[in-house]
């Protein structure tokens, strides 16, 4: 060895016990789907089948909602708030205790690197339960009136990009505010939600307070349209979000929607360039770019474009792609064949429309779903890759000449979830942030999350906020 090659340092898959088959979790127990239909979930890094999963149809959804309703009326709504808090604290502690198991399972089922599940997803998920556990008996002081009430049964549908973290974002505030839950994880990543169901059993959570049903879009549609659901919370694509909004229009149901994004990451000439490059890499290649708030549009001030791009390319040469279970892997597998083909399709449109593609020299594994980290330069506002959410490791680079032009370009999108500002000048950061139409704006950093900080979108990026005091309002009928 004459170079510093990092020898493989894989985490052990044996840390988690994956069953060959999983049922639906309702009324505190795992049961088979009524019609007995199943589907499989695979490891996207190897295409190996991990487990057979029960497929919930209308009859199963009805049972799950009934289970949640019963738990709400008979147990959860009558329980003193401090007792609810105790359950949440208990769940949070169990998540920390079993964090390694969760991290391994998430990586196997999702394809994201173990470093991310270990250092980001699972610790943040536990933090969300801790944070909301503290709110359970303090809701009178949350700014939603003296005696805010829960809605009742919350139908929650979560995506595949952060399965466990999105589960925490949904379930923790719902339970803290006194709602009961029917949650449907994404069909490609159901395993950590099912392990979470075991955690609910371990914590002694009363039966029916949390119900986990597995299936596809049809299952989700049955859930959203169920007449006894009071509240819908959805994270996923803007297309599905719109369909949900239509479906619940005219009903008593309220909704929180966290949808797509096309975040602008704005680098001014006076930025700390090396750290900005880190932020750009983190903004688009974190989690293979499967991030709704990804900084997928890079806006560089034209006079520092060459320097930034040279450093960015050098940095991209260091990205380690491969086995997600290896502790040194930076970029893991694309979650599914369908998503891979969507990324390919959109990236190819970049070639066709005349943008310049660049990727580092890297060998992609032969099995599984992979896409090399890619940047497109010479992108203009009218290109599809500048307008549509790619949801993959593909960055579109645009330039601007003046701060106002940066704002105009950044806001020229139907989305408005996130944005980043890179400048060493405080006044410029504030000037820019004030004018950006996005729910979260990071200054000199990117993709930072905290349970105390509300998250959500402008425009087609969503309705409502999750996290923080603001996020509670999505699960409370306030008295104002």
């Amino acid at each position, binding site marked *: *060895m004459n*170079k*510093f*090659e*990092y*020898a*493989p*340092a894989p985490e052990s898959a044996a840390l988690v016990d994956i069953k060959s088959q999983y049922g639906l979790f309702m009324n505190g127990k795992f049961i088979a789907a009524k019609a007995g239909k199943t589907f499989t979930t695979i490891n996207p890094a190897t295409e190996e089948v991990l487990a057979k999963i029960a497929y919930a149809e209308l009859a199963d959804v009805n049972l799950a909602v009934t289970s949640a309703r019963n738990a709400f009326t008979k147990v959860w709504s009558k329980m003193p708030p401090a007792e609810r808090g105790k359950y949440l604290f208990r769940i949070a502690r169990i998540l920390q205790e079993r964090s390694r198991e969760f991290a391994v399972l998430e990586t196997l089922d999702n394809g994201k690197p173990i*470093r991310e599940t270990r*250092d980001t997803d699972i610790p943040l998920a536990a933090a969300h339960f801790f944070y909301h556990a503290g709110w359970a008996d303090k809701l009178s002081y949350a700014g939603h009136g003296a005696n805010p009430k829960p809605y009742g049964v919350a139908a929650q549908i979560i995506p595949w990009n952060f399965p466990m973290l999105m589960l925490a974002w949904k379930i923790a505030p719902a339970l803290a505010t006194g709602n009961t839950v029917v949650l449907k994880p994404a069909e490609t990543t159901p395993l950590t939600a099912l392990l979470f169901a075991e955690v609910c059993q371990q914590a002694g959570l009363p039966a029916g307070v949390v119900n986990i049903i597995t299936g596809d879009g049809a299952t989700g549609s049955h859930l959203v349209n169920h007449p006894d659901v009071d509240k819908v919370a959805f994270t996923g694509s803007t297309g599905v979000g719109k369909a949900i909004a239509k479906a619940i229009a005219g009903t008593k149901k309220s909704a929180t929607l966290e949808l797509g994004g096309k975040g602008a990451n704005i680098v001014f000439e*006076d*930025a*700390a*360039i*090396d*750290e*900005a490059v*880190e*932020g750009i890499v983190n903004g688009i290649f974190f989690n293979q770019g499967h991030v709704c708030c990804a900084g997928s549009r890079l806006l560089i001030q034209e006079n520092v474009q060459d320097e930034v791009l040279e450093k960015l390319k050098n940095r991209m040469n*260091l990205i380690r792609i491969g086995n997600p279970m290896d*502790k*040194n892997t930076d970029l893991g597998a694309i979650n599914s064949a369908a998503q891979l083909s969507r990324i390919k399709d959109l990236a190819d449109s970049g070639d066709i429309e005349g943008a310049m593609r660049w990727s580092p020299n890297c060998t992609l594994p032969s099995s599984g779903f992979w896409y090399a980290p890619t940047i497109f330069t010479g992108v203009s506002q009218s290109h599809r890759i500048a307008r549509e959410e790619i949801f993959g490791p593909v960055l579109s680079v645009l330039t601007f000449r003046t701060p106002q032009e940066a704002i105009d370009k950044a806001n020229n999108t139907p989305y408005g979830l996130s944005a980043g500002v890179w400048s*060493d000048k405080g006044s410029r950061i504030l000037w820019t942030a004030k004018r950006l139409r996005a729910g979260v704006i990071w200054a*000199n*950093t990117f993709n930072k999350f905290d349970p105390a900080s509300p998250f959500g979108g402008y425009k087609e990026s969503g309705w409502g906020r999750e996290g923080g005091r603001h996020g509670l309002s999505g699960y409370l009928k306030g008295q104002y």
Partner: protein
Amino acid sequence: MNSTLLTDNSEASLKKFLKTLAPVDAVGASARVEMLATRSIKTSSKNWAIDLAIRMVDLTTLEGADTPGKVKALCAKGVYPDPTDLSIPSVGAICVYNDMVKIAREALDNGGGKNIPVAAVTTAFPSGRASMEVKIQDTKDAIANGASEIDMVIDRGAFLAGNLGLVFDEIKAIKEICGKDVHLKVILETGELVTLDNVRKASYLAMLAGGDFIKTSTGKIAPAATAPVVYVMLEAVRDFYKLTGVRIGVKPAGGIRNTKDAMKQLVLVNEIAGPEWLDPSLFRIGASALLNDLLMQRMKMRDGYYASPNYVTLD
């Protein structure tokens, strides 16, 4: 030297050039080094990195209580770190005070370490608070006694007062005394410069003035070689190479006590400056306690279990 492309050595041009440097964001710098600290170095790469780290150690004793006996013992240890295993490489250099240079040189020459350089700390180390005449004489003495590497300190007072020309001229004068054959390491004492922006400026100042190495600390001030500081210095040598085609070395010193710390340093070198810097000619680690921990880890890799500390020699 090519760096004359960047300045004409006047204070005005120096300040103008240093103003062109991008700022450092301390939060981002910490985030980057924290991420790199999670790199998991195992099996064959750990073996390789331990031996490389041993070759990079500037085995150091810089105490008022240093005696000829102590220095000779250190030299013996530097040549054959573990007398029971001669496959272990010798250290990068022996680093001592001015008056111990001759003793160290003789001890190395007589003990099989002819190729190991002696590094001397000079210029009124560690404070640097002396007249230029004294600093020059200090350096000349050390070289005359056999030092082939000089670890000088910059005048931090002058740097903080904005007298960058003075700092520059001092480094330049000492480099002239060193000439081509004696390697000059310029100690920035980053614990006294405090901000990462200052570290970046001082790094460029030292490189422009002709330093062959930039070194974090004297070891007498805490904090010493923190990861963000080393990160900024490694970026500086990488970018300076782009500008001038000259590769400058980096030497963190102070606070690197165990193998894990050393591995983290090597990962920084690999991923920030680049693999070209993974060589004792371009990266050294100033340390004393580190060597024994490297030896113990090496034994553990070889034997599969941790030995008692009594299986490595004290000095």
